[in-house]
């Protein structure tokens, strides 16, 4: 049985981020996605949408589309906030000692490390982040 797709559009608020994670948990269970993959899926979804909810002034919604393929799930996260490429953030120093550690940029770092081909595009006045999530554990 093929893994079904997932699509959810929500108001760009922090409450919606929790709602999205709950919906993804339910989706992963029904679709039989293993916990290791569903945790990565949730993480990518949260990092990008929480960023929109907290920082994208004027954004009214964000949405997540998951299209499963044979080797990977293709993800697209879209919002109608001001033009912003989250992937352009510099990588954090993950070797720094405790005192010097700062978590700025860590979310994007996780997204880049857990996914493949992460790319951002401004299209039709919308922010679209696309990436692939390998379904091989």
């Amino acid at each position: 049985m093929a893994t079904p797709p997932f699509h959810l559009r929500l108001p760009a608020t922090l409450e919606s981020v929790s709602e999205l994670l709950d919906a993804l948990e339910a989706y992963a269970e029904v679709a039989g996605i293993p916990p290791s993959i569903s945790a990565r899926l949730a993480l990518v979804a949260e990092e990008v949408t929480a960023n929109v909810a907290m920082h994208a002034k004027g954004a009214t919604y964000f949405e997540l589309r998951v299209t499963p393929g044979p080797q990977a799930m293709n993800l697209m996260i879209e919002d109608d906030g001001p033009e912003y490429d989250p992937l352009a953030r510099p990588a954090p120093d993950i070797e720094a000692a405790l005192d010097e550690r700062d978590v700025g940029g860590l979310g994007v770092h996780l997204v880049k490390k857990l996914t493949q081909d992460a790319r951002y595009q401004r299209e039709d006045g919308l922010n679209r982040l696309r990436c692939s999530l390998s379904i091989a554990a």
Partner: protein
Amino acid sequence: MEITETTEGAKAVAILDGRLDTATAALTETRLLAMLEKGGVIADLSEVRYVSSAGLRVLLKAAKQAKALGASFAVVGLQPPVREVFEISGFDKIIPAFASRAEAASA
């Protein structure tokens, strides 16, 4: 997120149950920092299946606070997805992780 407090040896234990994410970060931070005021803390993450960067920020803050207070802070019971996030972030190098509460308490 549900947080239950108990003890292991001389250390306080915070048993976290749920997602450690954007929604639960503030509550978890408040509880952990309050516990650290009284001494060393072990955060038991056995029932945490998911930690995002917002959750990592909380754990980092707790570790920094512990250091400032001369107390200890450790995590135990990292589930595979959580361990993965720790490793990718380099948190495995800055926050002591143990297999069990007993091990963390005697460290």
